[in-house]
């Protein structure tokens, strides 16, 4: 494994842990900490593994359950997106393959583009009063979700040539 790959994998290990550590001084349950650390390590070792999904889901679930909508949620989101993109870049080849500099630049740009909706959503949710919003907003959103579920199910099916 190249030195760059070691560094990137170490960063991949640390990002979800840092996203959980932002909760300090409130301490998450030891089980949550154990799951995040172990699955992050596994994810860093094998960027295509399901452990990545478990790590992200655990961190998102913890912050959702504690309903923290302050500035920390923005940082957590950036860390999680960073971990996801890092795992994506590392999954392009085996661990002995050097990370292509041009590919890394492409994904840095995409990462910045991806973060654009984040502050908008955060500001909108903090300024929107759910009780006073018209009911059609929620119906339209629910329909959108259903359509996306169906579309995703169809599109993610492998198509044999």
């Amino acid at each position: 494994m190249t030195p760059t790959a070691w560094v990137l994998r170490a960063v991949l290990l640390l990002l979800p842990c840092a996203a959980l550590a932002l909760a300090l001084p409130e301490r998450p349950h030891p089980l949550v900490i154990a799951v995040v650390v172990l699955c992050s390590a596994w994810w860093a070792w094998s960027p295509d593994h399901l452990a990545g999904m478990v790590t992200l889901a655990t961190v998102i679930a913890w912050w959702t359950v504690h309903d923290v909508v302050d500035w920390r949620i923005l940082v957590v989101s950036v860390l999680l997106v960073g971990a996801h993109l890092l795992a994506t870049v590392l999954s392009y080849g085996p661990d002995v393959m050097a990370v292509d500099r041009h590919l890394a630049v492409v994904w840095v740009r995409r990462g910045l583009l991806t973060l654009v909706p984040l502050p908008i959503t955060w500001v909108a949710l903090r300024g929107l009063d759910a009780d006073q919003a018209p009911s059609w907003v929620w119906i339209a959103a629910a329909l959108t979700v259903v359509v996306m579920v169906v579309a995703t199910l169809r599109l993610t099916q492998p198509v044999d040539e």
Partner: protein
Amino acid sequence: MKAWRPTPSLVRACLITLVGLAGGVVAGLDVMVVLAAPFVLLAVTGLVGRPRHGPVIRTQIDHHRLHEGQGASSRLVVDDLAGVEHVTRVAAPAPHVATRPAHGAVGALVDRDLPVLEFSPRRWGRRVIGAERVVLTSAWGGWRWGPVDMPEHGLSVLPQMAPYDSRAEVPQPDGLVGRHRSRRLGSGTEFEGIRQFAAGDRLKRINWPVSLRTGDLHVVTTRAEQDAGVWLVVDGLRDIGVSGGIDGASSSLDLTVRAAAALAEHHIRTGDRVGLLVLASDPVRVRLGTGARHLQRLHGTLARVRTDMRSAAPERLDLGSTAGSVVHVLSPMLFTPLVTATASLQRQGASVVVIDTLGEREPGPDRLALSALAARMQKIERDDRLQQLAALGCPVVPWRGPGTLDTVLHQLARRAQVPKVRAR
């Protein structure tokens, strides 16, 4: 795997997007919406970027015939790159083949250039390169084609032409033309002497100073320049030691084949006719010949030398007529029948030189180990055989590269001028 399949990255982004939006809309979990929002773009662009056609992939190798240490590039040919963003190639490791990048894994964006793998065989022989796996990835890392296993390519690796040169003349040149000084008089450039003019002499050969001084016409005589027949006998019966390729230690067969290649190249360059006899389970004999094409044939034959534990040493070396030829026997001389056959050849009048290709072998750490004892006993027996050969007038020299044969060929050339009786 012949299908575009979603990558784990896309699946992750899609699941977080769906769960986040569902949690936000259905359960009113604002935090989940904020955390899932960046993944929406990743999921949508990844899903939309699915290529519509299945590409056909193949690889091309630049060269199929190389010398040790030379390199060949393996290029990827993809018929349809629409929707493909990135290509990854991972070469399977092959013995005695170095790759660049070092571990044989390379990836690149398609809009820059398709990645190229470079192979360099480090040992002569038949090598297999190009077995690799190729993965194509769509834009935004959403879809993946492969890994596709690519077929391997056969590569004929010729022995490295080790630097070899010799200023010694071949003892008994007997051909028509060439660079070696003959014992016969002829129209060469090597000065032989001055004698009185005789009918038939060419006028331009008249030496006017001597003619004026003596009052009679005198002409300069020169020696003819002739080529020689050189036979290379290659012992491919056993391979002693471990080969590390051109960068590492040489086995006895490495030394043998590379020395034979160097000698063939040298003698062909000097205009001699060179023949080859490979002693193996399936002996190969290449008749005397000259020229670049013949050299290629010799190198190709040497590249196909294989050892086989079932092969036995021959009782006699069948080279046809060896009168006037020089025979180089390249061998570690581990078999008594081969020593006997070499001695027989020497008695038949051929100028035989044994080139010892056992090389320097490091003794094991334990001198009393069974294998070390066996190796020492074998070495003692071998040295005894070589001494007996030398006593018969057959010089034995270890292969040392340039100049290895100079001294013995000078001695053989002097000996060739002495009348002798040949045993039948």
